């Protein structure tokens, strides 16, 4: 069973952190990612550029509307994701809890809905 782990955190707070702290977090992410690759849980994952670089696209009445920024203004922003294989939700949430950003942001755990399943 696959789950998408969506990493939300406060971008402003993240960007305001001292360089050393950012480096330490990046190192932690490296260790974590290597760990889930080794355990076979890792299926994919990326970090995302800040929401300032985001563009939202909608099509209404056949017209394409392109606007600056993310779809919703929230306190925490989507900053990255992992796609994982886990045997059930408990394993998925245990992995989510090990993501470094879980300690200051939050991780949304969403089951993948395979094509062909109702």
């Amino acid at each position, binding site marked *: 069973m696959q789950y998408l782990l969506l990493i939300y955190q406060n971008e402003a707070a993240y960007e305001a952190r001292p360089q050393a702290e950012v480096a330490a977090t990046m190192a932690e992410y490296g260790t974590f990612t290597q760990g889930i690759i080794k355990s076979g849980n890792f299926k994919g994952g990326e970090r995302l550029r800040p929401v300032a670089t985001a563009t939202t696209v909608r099509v209404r009445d056949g017209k394409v509307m392109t606007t600056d920024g993310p779809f919703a203004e929230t306190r925490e922003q989507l900053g990255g994701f992992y796609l994982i294989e886990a045997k059930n939700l408990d394993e998925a*949430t245990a992995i989510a809890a090990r993501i470094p950003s879980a300690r200051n942001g939050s991780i949304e755990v969403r089951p993948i809905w395979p094509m062909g399943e109702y």
Partner: protein
Amino acid sequence: MQEAFAAALTQWPASGIPVNPRAWLVSVARRKAIDRIRRRSSFLNTQHQLEAEAALASEPAPDAADAETIDDDMLRLIFICCHPSLNRDAQVALTLRAVCALPTEAVARAFLVSEETMAQRLVRAKTKIRTAKIPYQTPEPDRLDARVDGVLAVIYLVFTEGYAPTTGPDATRADLSAEAIRLARLLDRLIPERPAIQGLLALLLLHDARRPARTTLEGDIILLEHQDRGLWDQAGIAEGADLVERALRAPDIPSVYAVQAAIAALHGKAASFAATDWPQIVGLYEVLLKLQPSPVIALNHAAAVSILDGPAKALNLVDALAAREALDGYHLLPAVRADLLRRLGRHDEAREAYRAALALVRQDPERRLLAKRLAELD
């Protein structure tokens, strides 16, 4: 019996509610067992397989099934119903439906919603169990404490609704209290010698023991001070008090349920309202506030202080609590305040507070009590 309860959760919405859930579970268990035997057929010769199938098919009643397996399944069922990824209402509803085997209509009544609404809620919860793959298993040891706490919170919520319903015509709902006690007993049997579980069971027994004295025949509330203590269930008090002692003997930090139960035990053992050990009760509330700084506990603490040190000191505590705004909308805050003001002879302010409480109260007998108190001031 391995997968029967999990099947019960996912199949009820599709195939309708079985008339006798327990018998149905067993028959599902039997079918599942037969399936498993079929799957393993390469390891069994045909003769053995046929014998095993026949044995399972003729199994007369659940009591004949392996008791340990039923216990394992029951525990897993409790944990899946109270899984933290379900919201609390869904946890309570699923537990009442699947663990207590209450019909959907009865679960709906517990929540004061229509049967249709409750059926939809249950379907949604079961869909989440299936699609998010919430596991049907007892939690890993490192998560067990937190998961047991979640189950206890569900049981406590069911009991509270029975002890003092939020809304509706009744001052107590014995059916819900009884289900909660049954659940707590079951959990205590399945996971024995756990102070938090013992503490909760004790708390429920001690509170429920006073129920016969808490209302008049007409369903009006009788406050602790005026209750006929001869009506209290002494067996329940004795069992509860014994459990509290065992729960508090554990070397760990005491569970909040055990401390609350200790307070209830002091009430239960007191010969009269006046002869109650109020200094110890106030002390226990202070312990409780350190363990769990909740505004509801702070309000109860203030009420106990009013008996020990008088209403003036208690009013200071209640006013400080009101200033924190954490209990906004909770009728018992102005109700306690009104009582303290009345005892201090500040009748105009008391009237105002009773009116504030009346605007918030949703349970009929509580409303009648507040209205009576207000009328007595005139």
